[in-house]
């Protein structure tokens, strides 16, 4: 029987909720407080919780380090790419109005904000995990005596 049974059960219940909350914060950022940055941190916190309870190797199986570099880069590319797309459409850099110039309720702005927030979300989640993996992988196994 593995130790910390209670922790494991509680964590298993909490992690999906944390992830759900992260997505809520992400996609509800236009209406309430929050946005890509906070959502990314929350999702990363969920994964870190998983790593703390089930071990960093299990976490690395769930979210492999090779994804991290790609995810980090993808976020910036998505953000910058939104700007490049507005260039292609003939506007200034990050001028989201170009996505829907005719719209009466600023649909272009909504698309633009959605895209860049998603980019921030990707980069933040992956960068936070990168930092955690980098520190965590160097740690000797956590033992209770240390605390």
């Amino acid at each position, binding site marked *: 029987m593995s130790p910390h049974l209670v922790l494991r059960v509680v964590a298993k219940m909490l992690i999906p909720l944390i992830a759900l909350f992260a997505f809520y914060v992400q996609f509800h950022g236009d209406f309430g407080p929050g946005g890509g940055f906070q959502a990314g941190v929350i999702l990363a916190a969920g994964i870190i919780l998983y790593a703390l309870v089930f071990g960093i190797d299990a976490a690395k199986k769930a979210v492999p380090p090779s994804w991290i570099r790609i995810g980090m880069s993808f976020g910036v590319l998505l953000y910058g790419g939104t700007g490049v797309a507005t260039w292609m459409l003939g506007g200034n850099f990050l001028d989201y109005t170009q996505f829907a110039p005719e719209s009466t309720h600023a649909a272009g702005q909504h698309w633009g904000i959605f895209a860049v927030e998603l*980019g*921030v979300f990707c980069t933040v989640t992956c960068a936070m995990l990168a930092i955690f993996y980098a520190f965590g992988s160097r740690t000797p196994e956590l033992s209770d005596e240390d605390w």
Partner: protein
Amino acid sequence: MHFSPIFILDFGLMAMLLVVAFAVVRIRSLFAIVMLQGVYSLLSAAWFVSLDAVDVAFTEAAVGAGISTVLMLGAMLLTDRQAKPIPVHQKMGPFLVVVVAGLAMFYAIGDMPAYGDALSPANAYIGAEYIEATKREIFIPNVVTAVLASYRGYDTFGETVVIFMAGLGVLLLLGLNGNAGKWRAKPNGHNIGEGAPTPARNPVENEPKPVAKSTKAKRTAKKTVGVKS
């Protein structure tokens, strides 16, 4: 001056912040310091809520109290549990800087706009314009999101790059699997410089294939230099 509940709450929170900050400076147990920093972040998040800056409060709670506490613990586990005592003469410099910077701020307090003044430049000029323009131009209820992602979206792009760079930085320096930092650089010729092993032992070599070189270099580094990381 009226003592509304909010006013008392603000002062209470700031007093607690001050106490926690002093405790962080005084305590030597790193574990306690990390935990107190989490407390500090949570208190400032609460204070931001009382200032009606919910977005900032949210970020502070998620980053300051959440992630950075975990990361600081991770870093602490790699180092030590106790901070080394710092001799007084080394503390004087930073102390002086803090005192001078603090006094400078006190000097300017008289000319600062009153707390919560709706007519202060920061609230009345561009700030008010953002609130007006968001309704007209962006059509979303959260003005903060509109400012962050659209009006000042370029700043946010820069911040995203900063975070990307932070991730890339740990990737470069530590590696995600905890195995970086053992590779040694080697001149592409005779090494006569400081720390050269024995002269003329490394014959002039053209650059070999990178992969082969790395493993070889790693092995020699372990044997000759014996650097532990």
